[in-house]
């Protein structure tokens, strides 16, 4: 390999030097929400970002999704610069944001219709995802008839349907009760294992981050910077509920928690 050419292949998702400043006004100082964040997500990886409130994690995710533009810096997916939103980056929001007038099946089909999939293919894909998410009995119901956990499953299915390159999850389980949240975590892991999706997830729950992610980025607050990048050594097969009682898991969780506590300012 002494004379070969080394091609640096781009990571699935690259975030370089993202800065987001909100201009001030009279009586209002300029606010720097995000101050120079770098991160990468490899293909098929599940990465979590944890940070206290005010670390700009939602802003960062919106920038990656193309919903907001950064003041400085660059986001690239498969080496292509992100300049706006698109179905290649599926997003899931804390508030589910399902279309309330559409049934579960119609919600899941929304992105496929936008991509111009033919009806038959659409129906197959929706049926497949309804099965994966265990929503068979609910396919023709509208969101207000569903529980919070159900709604978030629909949101995940809807984001998965167009087969995005990257899934961006913004505190997806933040509004769920503790029991439903645990079920949904295992469900997300299962979806991740079966689909091989590339997932970047924002959360403030450290245990959740360490349980799910292969790497955890810890952000500082006011402004948001990367305080640490923590690799999580557990194999995908080890990520079962019992792991949460494993001393090695608890140890790592406490380390990350301490990193985060250093950042909390009241």
């Amino acid at each position, binding site marked *: 390999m002494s004379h070969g050419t080394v091609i640096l292949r781009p990571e699935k998702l690259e975030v370089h030097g993202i800065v987001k400043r909100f201009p001030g006004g009279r009586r209002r100082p300029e606010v720097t929400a995000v101050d120079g964040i770098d991160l990468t997500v490899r293909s098929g990886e599940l990465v979590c970002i944890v940070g206290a409130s005010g670390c700009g994690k939602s802003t960062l995710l919106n920038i990656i999704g193309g919903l907001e533009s950064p003041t400085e810096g660059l986001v690239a997916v498969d080496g292509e610069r992100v300049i706006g939103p698109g179905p290649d980056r599926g*997003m899931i929001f804390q508030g589910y*944001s399902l279309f309330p*007038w559409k049934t579960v099946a119609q919600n899941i089909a929304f992105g496929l219709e936008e991509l111009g999939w033919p009806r038959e293919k659409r129906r197959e894909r929706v049926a497949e995802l309804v099965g994966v998410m265990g929503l068979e009995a609910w396919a023709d119901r*509208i969101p207000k008839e569903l529980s919070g956990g159900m709604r978030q499953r629909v949101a995940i299915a809807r984001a998965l349907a167009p087969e995005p390159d990257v899934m961006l999850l913004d505190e997806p389980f933040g509004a769920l009760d503790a029991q439903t949240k645990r079920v949904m975590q295992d469900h997300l892991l299962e979806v991740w294992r079966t689909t091989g999706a590339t997932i970047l997830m924002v959360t403030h729950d450290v245990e959740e981050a360490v349980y799910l992610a292969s790497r955890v980025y810890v952000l500082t607050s006011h402004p948001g910077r990367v305080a640490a990048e923590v690799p999580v050594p557990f194999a995908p097969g080890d990520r079962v509920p019992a792991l949460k009682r494993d001393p090695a898991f608890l140890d790592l969780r406490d380390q990350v928690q301490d990193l985060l506590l250093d950042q909390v300012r009241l």
Partner: protein
Amino acid sequence: MRLRRRTGRVMDRDDRGGGWAPVADAPQDAGPDGDHVIDWRNSLAAKRAPTRGTPQHELLRIREDISTRWRATLIATGLVLLAGLWLFMATGSSSDLLVPSPSETWGGAMRLYDDGVLFGDIWASVRRILFGYAISMAIAVVLGILMGSFRSADSLFESPIAFMRYIPATALVPLMLFWLGIDELPKITLIVIGSVFFNILMVADVARNVPKELINAAYTLGAGRLKVLRRVVLPHSLPGIIDVARINLAAAWAILVVAELLAAEEGLAFRIARAQRFRQIDEMFALLIIFGIIGIITDLSLRWLRNRSAPWARA
């Protein structure tokens, strides 16, 4: 007297006040042959026990439902009160007002019917409203959605519309008759002018209330801006738009009446003006009641349409 609560604790009168206190030395599981034990819940003592909290009467609870029976009773009472007021004014000799009785009013309505003008007048007025208000709502939906969705459109249109909205449409009636003659055109134009500015601003408010997250979700699912307007903003706004139409319809009727009073050859308000000229108060009353009936029918139909077209938005 001692008694036992459901929890098993034996209670006795508190010697300090009127309350109950647990008895410390009582055998806590004493049976019928121990202390005198009675069921707290059914005892006379429980009924006489001190109370906590303020009870609220069913009819006076803020934002709570009432029973169907009460609801029906109150609705009927409201109608009876209105009818009673009418009867009182019609028969009360103390009144200087000339108020026709219900039967006289019915007679007036029948006279209009026999003259063959009643349904012609109703249709003339309803037709003007249908045309004018359809145009008004069409303009309002397009401009309102644009203004509610784009800050640029909002900045451009808001001041001129706010200005126009404060010119009373009734003040434009002479001008419109002068410009457009006394045909149907000035009346329909006046209905549009009299309602469109309110409709635009209220539809814009409805469109502004579409959650940003739904719009963002649509973007990340591959929808462009036009598609977001058509597939997210419009369907989410639909029930609100129907409500706006329902609320402002009264304004359209008000301006139509003014236009018909001044210049028309048929129509409900024209007929009222004519009845006044011939001092036929019974006919005037019949025509007023027809206005009310038409109003209630359209209001109920639009409510029904709203619930039918957007069951997801029903409370």
